């Protein structure tokens, strides 16, 4: 009886974990993933930075493509201010062949990504963060050596056209961290492509 209850509880917890999304204020989840240059990149490598712009993105999604240049510009602008971009590709290449490690390498080289582009091979990291779409932003803030989630959501309010943006949610959040103000909004929603996963 007790075992059955424990099993039920465990299943319930697993089900909850699948749908959980880290929220602003939560501890960031550490990761160690393979980069397109063959090296392994970990969140702890960034402990001397003020924060990390963590982006779940991919190769073929039109929203990811529409934001690609803006993500590159974000790194150009904020890496030297202590907020570098780290991109993670969460898609299962069996379901989305254009997201294979080889295709990622090609894309990163062709577009000259100034940031690491990591493969979430086991798909555990995107699930732990609760990312649901590409691109999906998790801005992490260095809080005395430990990373905390500061902002979750969209980069800005116009995916199609960078010149028509009126709200730069992510830049505003970084600005608030730098000036020590509270982030408003710390959570936004956005449309994007679903992350491709068999389970």
């Amino acid at each position, binding site marked *: 009886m007790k075992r059955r209850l424990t099993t039920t509880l465990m299943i319930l917890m697993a089900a909850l974990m699948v749908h959980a999304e880290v929220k602003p204020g939560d501890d960031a989840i550490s990761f160690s993933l393979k980069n397109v240059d063959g090296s392994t990149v970990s969140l702890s490598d960034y402990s001397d930075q003020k924060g990390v712009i963590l982006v779940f993105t991919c190769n073929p999604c039109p929203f990811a493509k529409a934001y690609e240049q803006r993500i590159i510009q974000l790194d150009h602008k904020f890496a030297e201010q202590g907020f570098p971009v780290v991109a993670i590709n969460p898609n299962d290449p069996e379901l989305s062949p254009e997201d294979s490690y080889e295709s990622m390498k090609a894309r990163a080289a062709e577009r000259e990504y100034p940031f690491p582009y990591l493969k979430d091979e086991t798909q555990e990291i995107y699930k732990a963060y609760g990312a*649901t779409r590409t691109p999906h932003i998790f801005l992490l803030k260095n809080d005395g050596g430990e990373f905390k989630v500061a902002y979750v959501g969209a980069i800005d309010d116009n995916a199609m056209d960078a010149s028509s943006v009126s709200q730069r949610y992510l830049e505003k959040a970084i600005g608030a961290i730098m000036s020590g103000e509270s982030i408003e909004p710390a959570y936004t929603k956005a449309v994007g492509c679903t992350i491709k996963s068999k389970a």
Partner: protein
Amino acid sequence: MMSRVLLLTAAAWWFTGAAAQQIREIDREGIVQLSRLSNDTTYVINFWATWCSPCVKEIGYFETLHRKYAGDKVQVVLVSLDFPNQVNRRVIPFLEEKKITAPVRLVTELDYNSWIDQVDPAWSGALPATLILHKDKRIFMEKELTENELFEHVEQILN
């Protein structure tokens, strides 16, 4: 005589309506109104895009639903989240190829954050998503549906 003319006009309207796909635009206010409809008609509102592969897989089921229940107080609305600059190049050819006759609305408000919660607070923003409305009943699903699932939900709400 008069009724025959009317009947012919109605038939002509129905046939041309069925043959040509008319895409209308929908803004924030339109989406909010659509998501709050509450009357005798059952509204089946599917949020989709040509670039979303699970959406492409299930769109035929919505078309089947639209044809099966035509005139039966079931109204299917396909709300496209394709970028407005992709309509001629992607959306129209896609609808023609799939022979979609159900009404299509193209979202013009690209600040998604300003209306996603109005459709349903549970929606993360991932596609596809489907909203079924009938009087005070409301079903929201953020996932790909099978044909059976879709029809079961509609029949359940009708009975």
